[in-house]
């Protein structure tokens, strides 16, 4: 297998950066500019996905459908002037990624993604958006901050990484034969029969127990931290706050 030239990839990512620049929120939005930006974004996504396909056999058509959905929704997440719509488009990204994970036979991961992201994290985001709602569309949502420099930075980062991956593809180790792996970490040969949930559970409990414990401790720390951050004494109107008793001074410090 010859190494594919990374130039189509570079071109696609440059086109994508160009499209993002025109799609970024700005003060006066013109319809033609937005349409041109969308067309360029679609072209960039398809060029990147299909140019990278030259090096290998066909991936399923479902992957491409969901990849396009995920990319367009992700563009909308970062360009929509209203945060509520950004959050809803992010749900679309999560669902598309979950569908892609199912095509990878990662069913447990896909379901966990939908439950945790679309079910828990996004609801938290929506709560905060509702709590901090500003009347109308505030100016900081309608005007982007340095869109030109940002797309240059993003293009350099991802374009170089993707181009190098394309160029070095023949240097990647080949896909390993399943029998070369030990039984505890190998994916089941026929994942549709039992799913690979059991394999993930075994791997987490036998090979990565420290990571699992650290994850639990991190969740606990985050919970305590979030409670401490959001704790604020709100004085009841008309009632003067009680003077702290001597023993409490120095113990109870106001959060801010």
């Amino acid at each position, binding site marked *: 297998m010859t190494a594919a030239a990374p130039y189509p*990839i570079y071109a696609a990512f440059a086109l994508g*950066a160009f499209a*993002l620049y025109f799609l*970024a929120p700005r003060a006066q939005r013109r319809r033609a500019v937005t349409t041109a930006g969308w067309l360029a974004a679609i072209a960039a*996504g398809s060029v990147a*996905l299909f140019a*990278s396909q030259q*090096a*290998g*056999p*066909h991936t399923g058509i479902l*992957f491409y459908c969901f990849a396009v959905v*995920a*990319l367009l929704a*992700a563009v909308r*997440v*970062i*360009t929509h002037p209203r*945060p509520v719509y950004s959050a809803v488009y*992010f749900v679309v*990204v999560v669902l598309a*990624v979950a569908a*892609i*994970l199912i095509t*990878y036979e990662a069913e447990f991961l896909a379901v*966990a*993604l939908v439950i945790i992201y679309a079910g828990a*994290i996004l609801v938290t*985001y929506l709560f905060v958006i509702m*709590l*901090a709602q*500003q009347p109308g569309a505030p100016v*900081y949502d309608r005007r*982007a901050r340095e869109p030109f420099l*940002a*797309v240059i930075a*993003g*293009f350099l980062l*991802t374009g170089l990484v*993707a181009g190098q*991956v394309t160029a070095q593809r023949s240097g990647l*180790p080949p*896909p*390993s034969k399943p029998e070369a792996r030990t039984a505890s970490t190998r*994916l089941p040969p026929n994942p549709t029969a039992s799913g*690979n949930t059991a394999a*993930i559970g075994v*791997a*987490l409990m036998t*090979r*990565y127990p420290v990571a*699992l414990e650290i994850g639990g401790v*991190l969740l606990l720390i*985050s919970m305590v*931290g*979030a409670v401490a*951050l*959001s704790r604020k004494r709100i004085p009841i109107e008309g009632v003067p706050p009680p003077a702290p008793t001597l023993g409490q001074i120095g113990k109870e410090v106001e*959060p*801010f």
Partner: protein
Amino acid sequence: MDSLLPSLMLGAALFGLGVVGFLVRRNLIVIFLSTEVMFQGVIVTAAAFARYYAHVEGQAYALLLLVIAAVEAGLALGLVMLLYRRRDTLDAEAWSTMRG
């Protein structure tokens, strides 16, 4: 065996979109949403490698990524609410005096 490369491209593109959103947007909530888009790109990449090598390691890694994403969302949104109550705005520029 499916080709690995389109998945890596998708992961890189999602990550790059998240980076651009993180830099471009001024709303604190949308900034953190952009980091979640970056997480999606990494999850796609990890799962693609897990499939390519028929190995469960990538999926276990992606599962731990989910834990980190939940931790990050909880703490970040607490911080955002704290900042919002102090300045009554979600604009990140309102805190540019911290730039020094």
